[in-house]
């Protein structure tokens, strides 16, 4: 197995954080639920090793973007629910904006004919 290059990992982590914040906007969720949701909503495109989700969530928690609380369901073991905070909502808006700009610019570069356009200027 080849390890993921650091640059790819950074990019993926950034995207994952954004996706996590988005999912938590809908409703609070626990870890297992979040990975299932990511797999479902990205149709398996954003593949993650599930164990690496938690360190990511800790990072968000440290930044104050998400908060946690333990809840015990009627049946089954206690679960730690993550919910988005006020700061998290703001960060989400900013990061989404940044992501869209980034995506558009990269797309523009990748677009066939991008070089010609530059030549016209």
């Amino acid at each position, binding site marked *: 197995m080849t390890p993921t290059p650091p640059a790819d990992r950074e990019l993926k982590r950034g995207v994952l954080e954004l996706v996590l914040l988005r999912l938590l906007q809908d409703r609070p969720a626990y870890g297992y639920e979040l990975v299932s949701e990511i797999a479902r909503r990205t149709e398996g495109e954003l593949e993650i090793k*599930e*164990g*690496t989700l938690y360190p990511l969530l*800790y990072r968000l928690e440290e930044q104050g973007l998400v908060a946690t609380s333990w809840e015990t369901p009627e049946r089954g*073991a206690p679960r730690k629910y993550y919910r988005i905070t006020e700061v998290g909502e703001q960060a989400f808006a900013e990061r989404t904006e940044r992501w869209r700009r980034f995506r558009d610019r990269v797309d523009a570069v990748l677009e066939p004919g991008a070089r010609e356009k530059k030549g016209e200027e």
Partner: protein
Amino acid sequence: MTRDRYLERALRNVIGPRERVETFATDLRAHFEAGAERGEGDAQVAARLGPPEEVAASFMEGITLETAGFFARLFAFVADAGVLAVLGLPAFAAVALTVNGNPDPGPILIAAFVFLGLAMLGVVILYFPLLEGRYSRTPGKWWMRLRVVGEEHVRITFGQAFLRRLSLYFELLALDAIFVLFTRKKQRAFDIVARTMVIHEPGGRAGAWRWLGCFAPWAIVAAFAWALVYVGPRIG
């Protein structure tokens, strides 16, 4: 892989404030639990969690470890040397008592010399590498709240623990240690060879009394020597 085995493998590669490590363990356990509630076996959940070593590495990315400097390590070494000296006292006393008043001490001294040599070798091979390989620290490091880790911030192997002690064997101790002052990760030359480094244990530095305490074993040695030289002859 069972969940217990998985957690053991993931956590043995993790260093960090106890609270955070426990949180991580609880979360991973809950993940297995959530899977079980959906009828998934431990092996299935473990496969999706990813290799435990990789999961541990992702946890470690969020932990900042502080490399330990020359003096903290020197004091830990002084303490370890003191512990070894104290451990050697009974043998020393035994030799002293046998030689004392013996008309032909030659063979005993030779035997003692050979024994001392073997003991030194034992220290090089056993004390440091076994303790550091097994517990990532020696008593001196434990006292100074230090720990040996791999450059990737994971637990070191016995091989690494042995390798980083070879300077002791070749008597390059001082030269080797000077590297700590100039290298970026504050590594000894043989730390670089073994790909190891020494860090401050997360969650608090050693206070002044701990620094002082490094001399405690030497106080025992001094008391012993005093007893041998001054008190001994008077009773004898």
